[in-house]
């Protein structure tokens, strides 16, 4: 069964460093999303991406964040200068089409900023 994959599963980085979280969505999906979940808190929407551009972003998704689909398969989330409060689980999700609302989630990347 096709699935969303994410790498790495866990990344530890120092405050101020840049990180890139990688996702490979399901191959025929058109809509892509990033979410984060701070430990013990709820899942929060960050950004949605369609047709090679951001379609919606939340107030969390400020200038330190960016997303890219550099080739036909990868979907990345870059955090430019990490802060302690960026420590969280980051989930990527993808959806097939505008007629299908089900988002398939990847296993997540745990980011720890020290």
């Amino acid at each position, binding site marked *: 069964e096709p699935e969303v994959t994410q790498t790495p599963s866990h990344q530890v980085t120092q405050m101020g460093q840049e990180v890139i979280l990688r996702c490979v969505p399901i191959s025929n999906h058109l809509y892509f999303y990033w979410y984060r979940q701070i430990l013990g808190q709820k899942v929060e929407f960050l950004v949605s991406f369609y047709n090679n551009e951001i379609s919606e972003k939340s107030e969390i998704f400020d200038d330190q964040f960016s997303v890219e689909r550099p080739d036909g398969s990868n979907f990345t989330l870059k955090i430019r200068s990490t802060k302690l409060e960026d420590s969280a689980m980051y989930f990527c999700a993808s959806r097939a089409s505008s007629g299908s609302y089900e*988002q398939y*989630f*990847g296993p997540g990347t745990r980011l720890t900023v020290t």
Partner: protein
Amino acid sequence: EDKVVQSPLSLVVHEGDTVTLNCSYEVTNFRSLLWYKQEKKAPTFLFMLTSSGIEKKSGRLSSILDKKELFSILNITATQTGDSAVYLCAVEALDDMRFGAGTRLTVKP
């Protein structure tokens, strides 16, 4: 401001019990309401609801949406220890999705 509120936040039951989880929402441009089960890591999809009054059923789980009163319930009958998880309600509006805080269900043997 859009919001999704789940109740209760936490629930402990014994195997065989029936539970009802609640989700209320205030969202502009509502498209759908989705239920997810989150165990260790990523949420896994359970149901998507778009129309009022139509029950979705999968085994011991069922869910229904009331678009007039802006809520949904998720029922689990004859609970098993494997049902222990956080159950997330999410509401999709245009191109974003807002999650509730979740209900942590613990099923004791």
